[in-house]
């Protein structure tokens, strides 16, 4: 009961803020709606008992990526909205929204229809943890360092490459 109330409230907030992100003409407002969206998604992760992912969401997404976007928005320093002003009652908007609604209804029907059926492939057994690994953070860390060590190291190389690339791209030619 409580979870249903929390879920519907958070879903409404997440989807409403997402629509605000893509419709606000002011870019700074859009970034602020995005950070509120990320915080609501972090709360959803806590509801789903994924505390490590929730904290990573707040630290990396809301605290890192959104700050980066805000920096770039301020650096670009637009004077007024550069987008072309079109008649908002043009037919393409109505047709596009109808199409998006149809796709969503179709996805929902597929999800509801397939939920609860037997999976066509056998589901992999749950990971076995040693007895002293308790708690969500310890278990995710254990998986990262044993079964998924190679992807973990590859991600660190990826981040290094991205950092070098971003510095080279944004550097002034001197």
């Amino acid at each position, binding site marked *: 009961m409580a979870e*249903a109330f929390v*879920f519907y409230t958070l*879903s409404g907030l997440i*989807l409403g803020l*997402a*629509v605000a*992100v*893509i419709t606000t003409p002011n*870019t700074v407002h*859009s*970034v602020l709606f*995005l950070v509120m*969206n*990320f915080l609501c*998604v972090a709360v959803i992760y806590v509801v789903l008992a994924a505390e*490590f*992912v929730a904290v*990573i*969401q707040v630290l990396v*997404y809301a605290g890192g*990526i959104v700050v*980066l*976007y805000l920096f*770039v*928005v301020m*650096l*670009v320093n*637009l004077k007024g*909205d*550069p*987008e*072309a002003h079109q008649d908002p009652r043009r037919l393409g908007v109505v047709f*596009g929204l109808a199409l998006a609604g149809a*796709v*969503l209804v179709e*996805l*929902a029907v597929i*999800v*509801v229809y397939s*939920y609860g059926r037997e999976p066509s492939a056998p*589901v*992999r057994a*749950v*990971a076995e943890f040693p007895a002293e690994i308790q708690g*969500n953070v310890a*278990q*995710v860390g254990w*998986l*990262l360092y044993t*079964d*998924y060590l190679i*992807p973990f190291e590859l*991600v660190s190389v*990826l*981040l290094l490459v*991205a950092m070098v690339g*971003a510095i080279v*791209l*944004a550097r*002034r030619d001197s």
Partner: protein
Amino acid sequence: MEITPAHYTILSAALFIIGVIGVLVRRNIIIIFMSIELILNAVNINLVANARQLENLVGQVFVVFVIAVAAAEAAVGLGILLAFFRNKETVNIDEMNVMRW
């Protein structure tokens, strides 16, 4: 009503569609980047919800990797944007249509 992972998948699908609409409709490239982040968040919600139902934490490990890749992609994308903006002072993607000039 009990909240099943199907509910979370539908929420993820709706957020995904909103992100795709943002990428397709808006002309400001920063808004397009932010819509891509919305798409990645939708995928993350789906992964975490199904990880809880199957009681397999591999879904959450995958989410950590998706977040790391999203951070790397945001950094490089904004670096490209800054490099482009230095040459041509626009963030409208309709005007970003030449590779060199």
